[in-house]
């Protein structure tokens, strides 16, 4: 759906799925028994408005009786007094549609909502997995029929064309090439352009009822008529160009390249962990082969588990370095599969490397002794990350600041170190820094004498040797004006224990009363 795709040889294939009676179907699914009792009644779903209840969705029987979407309930009652009502639930419908969109990824790696009642699935390069596009559509139809949802579908090279065909052409239309779009769509009504209602009305008043009619008058004339309409939904020319693939359609993001993806559709839904492990092991092998073919290694893996009842469980992994070692992937996933709820069973498993990096082919270890050689650093960090979480593993890197606790930051372990100025080693620094400096009570000669005795964590230390002060001024470009300076002392007590303490402020600096002392670090 972009300039990039136009340049590539094979056109994209977009599957548009329209659920014409989504609200009604969902209401029937939710209500179950109650809905079966009302199967022959003219049913409408209503929402309350300022002017009374309005009809949001109608069943076929109610439609035959004269009820229409958007009608007031009172008007419909005059036509058909027997009408039955139920409250509509647009938020629930949208949530359901979101779930459906996720579920519809079983036919393609990428899907989008086409609110309020449609889905778009990118099935580029996928149909051969199902035996062709016709069989793919059959599969979709069967799957939706199993869930008792009515659908209309179409496949076309652009999202706009697929949408138009799904809504206004015979069900299951397939358009092969860009060149065929115009011919296939010329008989459709102008509403197929996804325009606002008022624009459709304008076009109809102009006598342009079908898409083919638009080409009969000059493009210039239409351009002039709609020159002030910048939004695609209000400008039939922009919409038409989108539909023909001449203008990128911002609805869809570009997927620049096919991500490595492997999947297993299972004959029998699996419910047991052991079988799942086996399937994941097979997938890891497949993925390793796929990645090896592309000369890539996975940085992020997504394991999708499609359950029989329509739920999708997704587990994501992020690796510290690109890898394509199936045993490593398997081991990392094994820790994440413990809390999977299999429900009635899992019918499809898919492994996708959503972030891959180039990884050159390397010769495998020839010696069998390599087994004993231990794991690599990246593999070790992956294992730690999976068990302890990503924030638990870090490395200290220097940061340009004078304040000691700010002069060090924690970064991911394998990130390259940011370049920094070399540190001036005038002053000794402690081996350890406490997470937050602890307040101590100090006996010292005011205003700025050496500390002589201090109490820390309930014990008194006699100071025997002192070095200091090392004065560190507040960073005025960052801190508030009231921040006080720090005078650091390196001290040793009677038993030889060495600490790094500081006095915050100095008497008479006009930034507070008597200064406090803090113990910030433990020296070697």
């Amino acid at each position: 759906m972009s300039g990039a795709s136009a340049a590539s040889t094979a056109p994209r294939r977009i599957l548009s799925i329209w659920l014409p009676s989504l609200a009604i179907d969902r209401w029937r699914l939710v209500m179950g028994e109650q809905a079966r009792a009302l199967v022959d009644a003219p049913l409408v779903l209503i929402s309350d408005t300022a002017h009374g209840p309005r009809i949001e969705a109608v069943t076929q029987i109610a439609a035959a009786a004269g009820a229409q979407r958007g009608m007031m309930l009172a008007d419909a009652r005059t036509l058909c007094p027997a009408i039955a009502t139920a409250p509509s639930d647009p938020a629930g419908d949208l949530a359901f549609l979101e779930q459906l969109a996720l579920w519809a990824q079983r036919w393609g790696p990428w899907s989008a909502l086409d609110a309020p009642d449609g889905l778009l699935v990118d099935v580029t390069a996928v149909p051969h997995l199902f035996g062709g596009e016709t069989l793919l559509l059959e599969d979709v139809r069967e799957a939706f029929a199993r869930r008792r949802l009515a659908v209309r579908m179409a496949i076309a090279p652009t999202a706009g064309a697929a949408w138009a065909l799904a809504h206004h052409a015979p069900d299951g239309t397939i358009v092969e090439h860009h060149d065929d779009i115009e011919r296939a769509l010329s008989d459709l009504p102008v509403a197929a352009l996804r325009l606002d209602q008022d624009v459709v009305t304008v076009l109809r008043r102009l006598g342009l009822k079908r898409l083919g009619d638009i080409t009969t008058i000059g493009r210039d004339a239409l351009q002039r008529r709609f020159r002030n309409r910048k939004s695609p939904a209000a400008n039939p020319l922009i919409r038409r160009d989108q539909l023909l693939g001449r203008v990128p359609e911002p609805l869809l993001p570009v997927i620049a390249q096919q991500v490595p993806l492997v999947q297993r559709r299972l004959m029998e839904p699996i419910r047991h962990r052991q079988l799942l492990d086996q399937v994941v092991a097979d997938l890891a092998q497949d993925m390793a082969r796929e990645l090896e073919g592309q000369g890539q290694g996975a940085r992020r893996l997504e394991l999708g588990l499609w359950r029989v009842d329509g739920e999708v469980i997704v587990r994501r992994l992020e690796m510290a370095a690109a890898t394509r070692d199936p045993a490593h992937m398997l081991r990392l996933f094994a820790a994440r599969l413990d809390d999977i709820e299999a429900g009635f069973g899992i019918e499809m498993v898919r492994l996708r490397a959503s972030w891959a990096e180039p990884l050159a082919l390397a010769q495998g270890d020839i010696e069998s002794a390599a087994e004993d050689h231990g794991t690599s650093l990246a593999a070790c960090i992956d294992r730690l990350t999976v068990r302890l979480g990503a924030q638990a593993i870090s490395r200290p890197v220097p940061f340009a600041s004078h304040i000691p606790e700010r002069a060090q930051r924690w970064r991911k372990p394998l990130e390259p170190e940011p370049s920094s100025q070399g540190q001036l080693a005038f002053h000794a620094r402690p081996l350890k820094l406490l997470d937050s400096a602890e307040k101590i009570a100090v006996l010292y000669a005011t205003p700025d004498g050496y500390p002589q005795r201090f109490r820390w964590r309930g014990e008194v230390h006699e100071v025997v040797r002192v070095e200091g002060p090392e004065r560190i001024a507040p960073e005025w470009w960052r801190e508030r004006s009231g921040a006080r300076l720090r005078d650091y002392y390196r001290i040793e007590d009677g038993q030889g224990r060495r600490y790094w303490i500081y006095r915050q402020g100095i008497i008479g600096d006009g930034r507070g009363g008597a200064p406090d002392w803090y113990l910030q670090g433990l020296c070697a």
Partner: protein
Amino acid sequence: MPHTDPASLPTAAFADVAALSAQRSARWRPGLAAQQGPALHSELFASSREGGGAAAALAFALDDIRHVPRAEGSEARDRRSVLWVQTREAARRVGRPYRAGLPHALQGRVIHVLAEKAEDALFALEEGLRCRDFAFVLGEIAGNPGALDFTASRRLTLAGERHGVPLFLVRLDAARDLSSARMRWEIASAPSPAPRWNPQAPGAPRWRADLFRARALAPGEWVLGEGGDGLEAQRPARAADHDGGDTAASWTAGLRQRPPPRRA
């Protein structure tokens, strides 16, 4: 087991026993790694009121790295990373490593793991020991958690010996419970020597190290310090008198002198 007459044994066996005895009565000294290989599993008991435990562990580790003979074809300088594992409780008590204060050889090589529980810390330690890309693994665990029992420490010993990665486990405020560590030290800070230019200031760090249990070495006490060319050890004045030379008689001296276990 069949009874054998000692006279029928070859004399070489007696020679081996004598060698073993001599080896057992050997004493620890800096640079011992050049003959015996690095100490693969050491435990260092220290108080959480000072930074001596981790500092001595780093000193031991660097001393071993300096003296272990380099294999053919390996780099002249060891640039492998170092895994430093702390439980959250240990980090709260003694703080986290500070890059600017680390020994110069280790700056930029530390990978830090902060584990919530002792179980997680043990997992991280074991994973680190299995990784060939670590020069050594340093752990800091506070107190005597239930997870760190003899089985757990045996696991660590075996993992370290299999992959040849040394482990230094600093036990903060811990009682001396069962452990399979090959060397067990009690570390405390010691007064530092006066620096040359400013006698008022604290000098180069020193620690009083008490080797109270070791597998193939006689126990003893030393005052350790970083000298110009690596780790230096002196016998403290008090320890010299009960030594009685390097004989196997002092083998149990460390056990007899064992201080009562401290409660964390």
